């Protein structure tokens, strides 16, 4: 079939389907009425269900809907919570931060942030420079060696990290224990405390590091403690306290609980699943073994047109 024949055929077909514009004629636009106010977390008139639910859970229920999707304010709140979590993960601890805060600066074998996420094995050992720095500068043969670290949130480390370290040191010194050189490790995983603790010959090592952020919560620290640290210890040799931040367990309280836990380790000369924390249940709360943590308090994060502190 020749090209001109095809053109004629197409033209005829189009004509049969309606002249030029294949869409039906446009309606007169009508003013769209304001939709009902939907704001997170509905401060004006929360439904009875949302109120009841809020007494029991921080899950975002009773948030209503637009068609099958979320109201705009819910979307913005969600995106803000997601952004807080993602930026906490993406933040890298600056090179000079440890020194500026009077801490011995250490690095794991990890070279950059992506490698940190992909190679947990490298985050569990010190690089050579750090190892020799540790050997030269750190006090040896201490009762307890605290290690501040970035973990999965440098934001948390730079936030309540120093306060937690100071409170913990004070709690330990009050009990007459020798406390190791204050130090901070970068690109660190939990098991890094084994090598550090072994090198300085500590009886107990505790690493205070940023925990994996959840929605809206990038500032939580966890503490993992091990008795007689050495390379090769596993998770069942450790005890931990999580959710350390102002809205969870505040640093002074966390430091107190950690000191109680260290005391139990020094007394029972063990840690992990074989450590009996039964007598400390009331004071330790979740660390005593239930593993439960209270839900994070959800706060509205987005305010339009209001004065903030600026960043």
């Amino acid at each position: 079939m020749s090209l001109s024949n095809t053109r004629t055929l197409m033209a005829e077909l189009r004509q049969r389907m309606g002249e030029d514009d294949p869409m039906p004629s446009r309606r007169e636009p009508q003013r769209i009425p304001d939709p009902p106010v939907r704001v997170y977390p509905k401060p004006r008139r929360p439904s009875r269900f949302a109120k009841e639910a809020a007494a029991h859970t921080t899950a975002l229920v009773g948030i209503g809907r637009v068609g099958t999707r979320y109201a705009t304010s819910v979307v913005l709140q969600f995106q803000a919570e997601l952004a807080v979590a993602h930026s906490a993960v993406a933040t890298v601890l600056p090179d000079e931060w440890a020194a500026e805060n009077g801490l011995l600066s250490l690095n794991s074998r990890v070279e950059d942030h992506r490698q940190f996420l992909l190679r947990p094995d490298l985050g569990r050992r010190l690089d050579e420079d750090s190892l020799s720095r540790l050997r030269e500068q750190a006090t040896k043969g201490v009762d307890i060696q605290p290690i501040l670290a970035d973990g999965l949130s440098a934001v948390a480390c730079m936030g309540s990290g120093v306060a937690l370290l100071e409170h913990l040191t004070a709690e330990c010194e009050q009990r007459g224990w020798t406390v190791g050189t204050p130090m901070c490790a970068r690109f660190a995983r939990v098991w890094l405390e084994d090598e550090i603790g072994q090198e300085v010959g500590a009886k107990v090592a505790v690493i205070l590091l940023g925990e994996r952020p959840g929605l809206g919560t990038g500032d939580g620290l966890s503490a993992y403690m091990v008795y007689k640290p050495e390379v090769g210890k596993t998770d069942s040799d450790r005890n931990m306290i999580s959710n350390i931040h102002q809205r969870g367990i505040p640093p002074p309280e966390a430091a107190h609980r950690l000191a109680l836990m260290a005391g139990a380790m020094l007394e029972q000369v063990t840690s992990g699943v074989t450590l009996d924390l039964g007598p400390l249940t009331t004071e330790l709360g979740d660390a005593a073994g239930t593993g439960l943590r209270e839900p994070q308090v959800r706060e509205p994060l987005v305010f339009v047109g209001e004065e903030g502190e600026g960043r």
Partner: protein
Amino acid sequence: MRSTIRGVGYSFDTVKEVLAKANPPKSGDDLAGVSASSAVERTAARAVLADMTLRHLRNNPVVPYEQDELTRLVEDTLDEQAFKAVGHLTVGQFREWLLESSTTGAMIRSISLGLTPEIVAATAKLMSNMDLLVAGAKCRVIVRANNTFGLPGRLSSRVQPNHPTDDVQGIMHSAREGLAYGCGDAVLGVNPSTDTPESTAEILRELHDLRVRNGIPTQHCVLSHVIVQMKALSELKCPMDLMFQSFAGSEKANAAFGINVSLMDEAYAMMRELGSASGPNCMYFETGQGSALSSDAHHGADQVTMEARCYGFARRYKPFLVNTVVGFIGPEYLEDGPQITRAALEDHFMGKLMGLPMGCDACFTYHSSMSQDELESLKVLLGAAGCSYLMSMPVGDDIMLNYQSTSYHDIPSVRMLLGKRPTPEFDAWLSSVGIMDGAVPGPRFGDVTVLR
């Protein structure tokens, strides 16, 4: 085994090496040190794989028969007649047969029980994402508990109302909200914080009351360890529609989960006798790429093959639900959106091909590099692939496990986009209470007060 690309020869020593190097890029295979060193080497491995017969794959499982009870289980119970129908084909030919328009779901089902995990994993490696969608959508697996699950044109969902301290009222508020959005026809399933028989029984009783009070044709489940559920069922006599367990792809990896074949046989027998659902299917399993490597039990194999081996284990128990928790394990196994998307489509295809009612927890942790938009797209892809069910929770935010999954709002959205409905029994219930009006939202859609 050799192949040549642009005059450069590539050689491979073992079937396991070919399988691993043929795998699309996954951070977990890099971590295990088994992946191809370049895209060209990957293609060379695929060329070798395409030319390998299914019989050769059956004869060379990635973990030897003598060392692993899962290998023995698959080999000893394989449907010989079904295997004979396809054993002579190469993987390349088998891929083409699956994709052929004349090959129907019924034809695939007829040979399904003759396929070993290694065969299924090899086939997935020769498929693009679109191949996985097309072939996956052909496979039908229909099962029954309190409703009929997996029918064509259906997309189901699990309501996952987890709570960080197991506050039962908090769990129930979330569950009611989910039901009001038409979610929950696969299961009302709670991951408990406390792994005890008492708390398992307490949550199950509450879910049971909610289900009975409102006449909801669905199932309930508390996802504690199988031993804990067995105690709750036999000693505390609680209702239990589905029994749950996580599976991994080798005997050693399952030992890290505290399970083995004989324990699961015992659990299944107990559930057949004491379970509270009415249909013949009463088990629920979860899997996920990377779980074997995380307990150093991958035997040098890649994570897709190890994942397929979970399905070889799961099909022994004729489960009502199986799902792959695809992005939960972290970026060291699946780094980003493309890897998580790929894994979701692979796992769905492999599970369905082996005859399992396959769902997917499309999800990411907050330290992986997947965006919310990519995750939402993945839910649509899974719906298009005929995935049997997705998870659902408020805004996709699991407040206990701290990860991002599918939301109560996503389920009706995907259903309407793709013209899908929930299971027929549940669909009728939704319309009877006004949550839906047939295929569209009804007058009580999203209204929790409809649930007593």
